[in-house]
Structure formats: C-alpha cells, structure tokens
C-alpha cells in the first residue's frame, strides 16, 4: 500500500465528480448559458478520466530526454487523444455560444423553458397548426416583449 494508490483514487474521484457535477448541471440548470458551462465541466472531467487511463505512478513524461535510454513512461496514447478532445470541446463551445447569442436576440431570453415555449410556438406558427398554448405576442423576426429582469433597451431587432 503505497501512498500513490491514494493519489489515483483521488484523481478518479475528481474525474467522476467533475463528470457527475457537469452532467447534473446540464440536466438541472434552467439557464442555457449555465448548461453550456456545465457541459464544459463535464468534458473536462472526461478528459481527466482519459488521461488517468494511461497514468502510471512510477513513470516519467513520454518525452525522450537522452538517446538510447528507455525509462518507464506514461502512456502517450491517451494524452494524444485528450489533446484532440480538448480542441474538439472548445470548437463546440464556441459554436454553442454563437447560437446562444442568436437565440437571445430572437427570443429575448435564455431560460430553457421559455426558449422551448418560444420554439414550439414558432414551429407551430410556421407549420400553421393550432397552438396548444396561447402566445399573445407576435413571433418570428420580431423579438418578444421583454421579460422581467431584462432591460428593454438591451434588445434590438434584427438589423
């Protein structure tokens, strides 16, 4: 029982903790921006998990320092994969926030239920089906009237 076994345990707990905090955050958040943040956290946890998959406590970093010598090294493959995963994550995150910006402009809110209601109403309107809920305000290109808490001046229509 070396102390390093405890280290792995700590790291596993951190990784699984980040994943569960992140996923719970995604499921439970009411605000879309917060959901994106939670996703970032969960992804970071998954990355840590992946690095852990190749971690050995008695090894050195996978970089040759002197020629001809082969010390025990940490597994390089998961590290390469995590590099890939991190970059993928940031790409998706950038796309997500750009979409959020547009949603905010169109619907004037980022609350998940309100956005879902606006979305349903707009789909129903485009399709021409009868709507279940009565959305008083005109939808589509024009933004909805401001909800409490969002300053009215903060929204301009589509320019």
């Amino acid at each position: 029982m070396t102390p390093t076994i405890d280290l792995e345990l700590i790291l596993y707990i951190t990784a699984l903790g980040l994943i569960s905090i992140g996923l719970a955050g995604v499921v439970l958040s009411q605000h879309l921006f917060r959901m994106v943040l939670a996703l970032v956290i969960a992804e970071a946890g998954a990355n840590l998990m992946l690095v852990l998959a190749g971690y050995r406590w008695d090894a050195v970093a996978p970089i040759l320092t002197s020629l001809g010598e082969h010390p025990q090294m940490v597994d390089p493959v998961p590290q390469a994969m995590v590099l890939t995963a991190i970059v993928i994550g940031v790409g998706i995150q950038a796309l997500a926030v750009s979409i959020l910006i547009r949603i905010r402009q169109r619907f004037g809110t980022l609350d998940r239920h309100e956005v879902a209601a606006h979305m349903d109403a707009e789909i129903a309107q485009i399709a021409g089906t009868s709507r279940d809920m009565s959305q008083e305000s005109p939808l589509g290109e024009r933004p909805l009237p401001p909800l409490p808490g969002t300053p009215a001046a903060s929204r301009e229509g589509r320019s």
Partner: protein
Amino acid sequence: MTEIELWIAALLSLTVLSAAVLVLLVKNHIAAVAAASVVSLGLALLFVLMRAPDVAMTEAAIGAGLSSLILALALRRLGLWQIDGVKSRQNLIKAINGVERDA
C-alpha cells in the same frame, strides 16, 4: 511521486471540485465563467503532476485561456456582463416593475 506531490494533488482536486460546484451555484454569470476557468487551470496543474506536459499546456492555453475568453466575449454579447452593483440595480428595477404590474 513524493508525499508532497500527493498533498498538492489532493489540494488541487479539492479546488477543482469546489470550483465546479461553484460554476453551477453562483448567481453571477461572470463569476461562473471565472470558476470554470479555475477548474481548467487546476486541471492543467493536475496534468503536470500526472506527467502529461503536452496536455497541461493545451489545457492551460485552450481550457483556461481561450475558452474563458470565448465565454467572456459571449457574456458581453448576451448582455449578461453584469457586475454585482449593476445587477442589484436591475433587480430593483425588476422589483419596481413587478410592483407596478401588481398594482
């Protein structure tokens, strides 16, 4: 792996986990973004301890740097860039509006 590294790792893990909880709990969006970048930074340091210097560099540059920059820029565009004072003034406005509507 020495004893001291173990303690550092434990401390970092604790920081990372509590920052992650903060991301979800804290009201202010700027603080949430800051907490998210703390998570990334802590992870980058953990990656150094785990003998993954490449990953650590990437996580620090992309996770802590670039990603926070993107989120911060997005906060501005989303109109969520509110320092506490401003926010409370808006809460006041909201409250007044609410009162007017009730009346």
